[in-house]
């Protein structure tokens, strides 16, 4: 009798926990779908088509969109440390959706903002949904944080 009562208590409490988990997960999914639809747009960003062979020698690259008001150069050597779509932003933090999943980027007073022609921008020119390429360095922490040196706002496709 006592054993049965005990089992009922365990099952009932476990059932409450499970129902709670399912409710919370469903609610969260519902909020996400409401914002982004049945897409991964809110979670990651696909940078673009994978390279498929090389074009013949010569031939110019695609011309940069719009006028080229800015000067050449200015980006550190190397690939961007991360390319992603801005999901959320504050004065000091950007949260990006990237092909690898969500990534956090720190902004500092030294962070430069430019467009693809390297025209200087302001932080206020960035908005949620913009796709950016970030050049920076990692700072210490359990998991590390990427501190942005240069952020390039990419032209929407």
């Amino acid at each position, binding site marked *: 009798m006592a054993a049965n009562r005990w089992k009922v208590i365990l099952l009932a409490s476990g059932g409450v926990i499970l129902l709670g988990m399912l409710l919370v997960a469903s609610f969260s999914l519902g909020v996400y779908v409401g914002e982004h639809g049945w897409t991964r747009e809110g979670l990651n960003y696909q940078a673009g088509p994978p390279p498929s062979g090389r074009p013949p020698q010569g031939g110019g690259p695609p011309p940069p969109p719009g006028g080229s008001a800015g000067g050449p150069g200015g980006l550190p050597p190397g690939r961007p440390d*991360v*390319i992603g779509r801005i999901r959320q932003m504050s004065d000091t933090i950007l949260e990006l959706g990237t092909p690898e999943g969500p990534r956090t980027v720190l902004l500092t007073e030294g962070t430069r903002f430019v467009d693809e022609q390297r025209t200087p921008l302001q932080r206020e020119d960035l908005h949620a949904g913009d796709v950016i390429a970030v050049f920076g360095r990692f700072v210490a922490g359990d*998991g590390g944080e990427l501190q942005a040196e240069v952020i390039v706002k990419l032209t929407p496709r």
Partner: protein
Amino acid sequence: MNPTRTDRPLALLLTAIALTVYVLTLTPSLSYLSPDGSELATIPAVLGLAHSPGYPLYTWMGFLFSKIPIGDVAHRINLMSAVLGALGVGGLYLIITQLLPGTLPIPWRRAIAALCALLFAFSLTFWSQALIAEVYAPNIALVALTLLALLRWERTRRAWDFFLFALLFALSLGTHLSDLGFAPAFTLFTLLTLIEQKAIRPDGAARRELSALTKSLLVIGAVGALGFALGVAQFAWLPLRAGTLNDRFMLRNAPTDLKGLYRYTLGAFPQFKFAFPIQALPDRLVIYLYLLRQQFGFPGIALGIPGLFSLLFRRPRHFHLLAGMYLVHVWFFIQYRAFDLEVFFIPAHFLWAIFIAFGLYELLSGLHTLGRLLAARSGFSLPRAVTALAVPLLLPTLSLIPLSANWSHNDLSQDVAVNDFYANVWELLPPDAALVTPGGVFGYDAFYWQIIYGTRSDVLLPTLPGPDPSPDALAGRKVYATIRAVRGNRGPGALPPDLLRQDLWAVPVLVGEQPEASSGRRGTLVLYRMTPEPPDLLVRDPRPQIPLNVDFGSMRLIGADLSQRSVESGAAVEITFYWQVERIAPLRVEVRLGERVLEQHEVGLGLLQRYAKEIGLSPGDVVREQYSLVIPSTMKAGAQVLSIQAVGLRGERGASADVAQIEITNETGTMERWLQIAGK
């Protein structure tokens, strides 16, 4: 269920399978993909103090592994992750076999357990962490051992077994402090086990039972506290080794007194914890579900949900244990702000594998029952050999799906970029140079060589002894850097603002390989020469060895120079590109050797914008880029074409040019070359 004589060898077999895969895909030495891995590869070998929270047990285990005479020290620490990760996989198998109910034939239960253990072993994130010097794979071994010890105590109810469990639990805090979050679930399980044991006795003995229960609780409590205290005593390591710290942030919270000990451990990284407002939590939970899907796919989620229900009805106490561990872990880390968030959910994925096992159990139980019903009605049944052997043999082969799907992402055996780069740095630096690197945790790419092997002891690493080197230390030395001095850089690894003048030119002289699959993990490997004088970027009368004359749009590649046409893999070749400016616009290019992309940069190597502003640049000018490029030590011997191609930030391709054919030689083995340069 007691682990049988067959289960332990099977667990070892699964460990061996996982370990084989991990060794085949193991990072050879320092990892490009793990920004703080170089610190974790160095500190154990010298019994130092790692970054918060200190990881004492990891350090001691790493010290033992660093003595194995294979490869270099970093390789041995990587091997530790592989070995302990594989042991965790074997432990998961044993946990599942002990929990699954006995209504299915034993071979079927073993097959379920083996499949789920291998699904976890080959899951995207755990596999990647078993190949590098990081704490997550060793932590899983400790979590598995702790759970096995708890289950053992549940069977035997001996005080010694509970002591062992408490000791292992406390020791696991030395591989990841977040395991402390399992304490409520462990406590609840212990109470439920003791209470349930008493609850099944006749009602008439209630008062005596209460007294016996109280006594049990006191004994278990005392024994557990003793075991836990002994395990936690490992953190005495922190004040003992606090004097070895060189990271600004860690020094600020140095564990030299109780307050420092708290700030170094439980109080570390407060800015990361509970970093999101409540309205962001649904979003964060969806991120976790996305990461879960990455590990086990939708089938894994679909099986895990009914698995939780099955666990509740078949093993209610264990449900509260495992679901309790899982919920606390997920709840904490969905509110944790970290760049590579996915690694923190590995223990939750470990637990989800158990839920999947129960889901599979229900599925197979249903099929088993259906099969028997059909056989009874139709009179036809499959041969016993088929049902007894086919399912157990075939089921684990489903783990080949994640194995093949994740292999290319997790094959880190070609990850040689960091070692190749620094091997060339030590060869290139002039005598008595100064090499400015990030301080603290992220400086260990360079520190590793001097600390472990005493490489180029004449070269000053100003940020090695401490985070605030004086500019006077650089006086009289040629200054090089692997970090650009950027205004406003903050954080523990940032350079003191007065160490390098902000107006210095950071001229790239050596560029390391930039593995394509590395985006978002580590910055580019570039050695800069720091000079107050502007570099000679413009050339009046260019006479390249290799005339090219290829139109790249805003610039024309008129030719190139190569220092040599035959180069040993792992060494560097000096390249010069001559670009005629046709239009003032940025041009981004990618340099390849054969099909392998070596590096990307913007023409001018990041200097052109400043050069144009301060010195001047006009259409018609010829810009010279001159730097040494590291040839990866994993390049196969033979002739390869060096080529250059215009590329956009998103990877769009443009004009290209074949520059020259280079003969790659492999006279010295990769590890042998690194160790030779290290000075061993």
